[in-house]
């Protein structure tokens, strides 16, 4: 098995953390998920979709609730379906109205969170689900890593096929359409991929902080990049750095890994903001 090659490789490292299977799995997940988040994040930030991804993350609560109501053992399927439905719906709405999506998303956010909490808190049972709020990357299984690998491959295919179309779509949809770009298709595929990435990693990253993991590396990269290549490369590097450092430090501190990773990413953002401000002066 490929995973055994990875385990044996880490056994050669002279660190305590590298000898636990849960850390080996977690590190592999981090190496896979953080570049993926960085890529998606660059477009989320460029297209001002930060609030939307927060809504997507929180829709997991409602997805779980629907799963509970319908008697699903594993809420993954209802979570995924709801998030995909939400992505397509919001995208349709965005194309139909020329009004700001801010308020619409705000209303949606309030509704889905409230609905999720009401269903899950029946008879005082919400405590069972707090794990989803904080997430736990240490519980990741090789099977979940397999799923993440599949979605990462899909994102890479999309990034190669639609990379330039995305730039035009993001700066002017009319300009994009004049260049025969199918903007609806470009945007819808992106939001559906985003929904898949968010929901497939929600168990690892947690509802409360998944958005920070998406947004911070791209936001930091934006401060110090002059072009798309630098933007993408810096976002991936910052995301990988925060992910690996946060995971290892959380092992020694005994803290939640996701939140520790976010702290590292936030520190990167602060440094990049200072550096960017210095350069522009």
């Amino acid at each position, binding site marked *: 098995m490929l995973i055994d090659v990875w385990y044996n490789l880490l056994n050669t490292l002279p660190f305590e953390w590298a000898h636990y299977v849960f850390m080996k799995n977690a590190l592999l997940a981090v190496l896979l998920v953080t570049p993926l988040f960085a890529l998606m994040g660059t477009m989320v930030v460029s297209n001002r979709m930060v609030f939307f991804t927060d809504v997507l993350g929180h829709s997991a609560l409602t997805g779980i609730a629907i799963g509970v109501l319908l008697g699903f053992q594993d809420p993954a399927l209802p979570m995924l379906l709801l998030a995909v439905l939400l992505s397509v719906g919001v995208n349709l709405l965005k194309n139909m109205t020329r009004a700001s999506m801010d308020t619409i998303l705000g209303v949606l956010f309030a509704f889905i969170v409230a609905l999720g909490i009401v269903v899950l808190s029946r008879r005082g049972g919400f405590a069972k689900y707090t794990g989803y709020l904080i997430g736990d990357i240490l519980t990741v299984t090789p099977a979940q890593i397999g799923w993440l690998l599949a979605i990462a491959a899909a994102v890479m295919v999309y990034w190669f096929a639609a990379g*330039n179309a995305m*730039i035009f779509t993001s700066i*002017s949809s009319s300009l994009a359409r004049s260049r025969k770009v199918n903007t609806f298709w470009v945007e819808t595929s992106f939001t559906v991929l985003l929904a898949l990435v968010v929901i497939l990693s929600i168990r690892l990253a947690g509802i409360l902080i998944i958005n920070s993991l998406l947004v911070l590396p791209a936001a930091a990269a934006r401060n110090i990049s*002059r*072009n*798309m*290549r630098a933007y993408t490369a810096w976002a991936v590097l910052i995301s990988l750095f925060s992910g690996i450092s946060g995971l290892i430090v959380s092992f020694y501190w005994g803290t939640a890994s996701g939140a520790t990773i976010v702290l590292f990413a936030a520190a990167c953002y602060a440094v990049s903001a200072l550096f960017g401000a210095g350069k522009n002066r």
Partner: protein
Amino acid sequence: MLNTCEHCCTRVEDLTVKLGSNVILSRVNLHVNCGEVVGVVGPNGAGKTTLLRTLMGEMPYQGRISFRVGGNPSQTPKIGYVPQKLHLEKGAPVSVADLVASAVTRRPVWAGIDGSTAGRVKEVLSLFSAEHLVKRKVGDLSGGELQRVLLAIAMTPAPDLLLLDEPASGVDAKGLALFYRIVRGLRQTHDISVVLVTHDLAGIYSYVDRMVLLNRGVIAEGRPQEVLADGKLVEVFGAALWNISCLPAIVKDKGKGGDNAD
């Protein structure tokens, strides 16, 4: 003399565009010939941008829009479009090279721009006096610089119909004159027709072959001098909007009927 619809032309007949119960354009007729620069002027809310969006196939309409390309009827002419503004913040990490490279190659620019693409990008930009902007961020360009870069993109590949949406907004007089000169120059090098919409009556006066005064419908149409001489112009724009220093000179000039600058 202008070509008479030999290569490309756009014909709009009885065009009506409604948004709900709101009539934005009503029974518009327009014919743009190959090699012609047509300026559509009108006050804010006259339906100028809607006209462009309808030509681009973005709006449902009643009436008929037909294109000819290479002398033959075409459903899908190549349209070059220069938008009025971009959704791009100052400092956003998109360079001029990124944007132009996205137009000349399918290879994604986030993976880097290879040598031959970089050469193509410079070549394209140099045709529009913009090669020195290649490394600048698009969001940091001045209005005039941005217009030239967007024009370079709209002309790559060369379209049959070029649509310019309010090129005057945020551009200083010198930048605008350069931009309009480049646009007129395109007629010599390409089989192309140009429609530009603007509220900047004075700016386009000497650069367009024909002027169309639009206020939901076509109010007046003809050579710039004829449209300026038409009393309907003041009716539509309102005397208060005539605060443009060079307009008195233009209006005085209108009787002479001289040729446009080229």
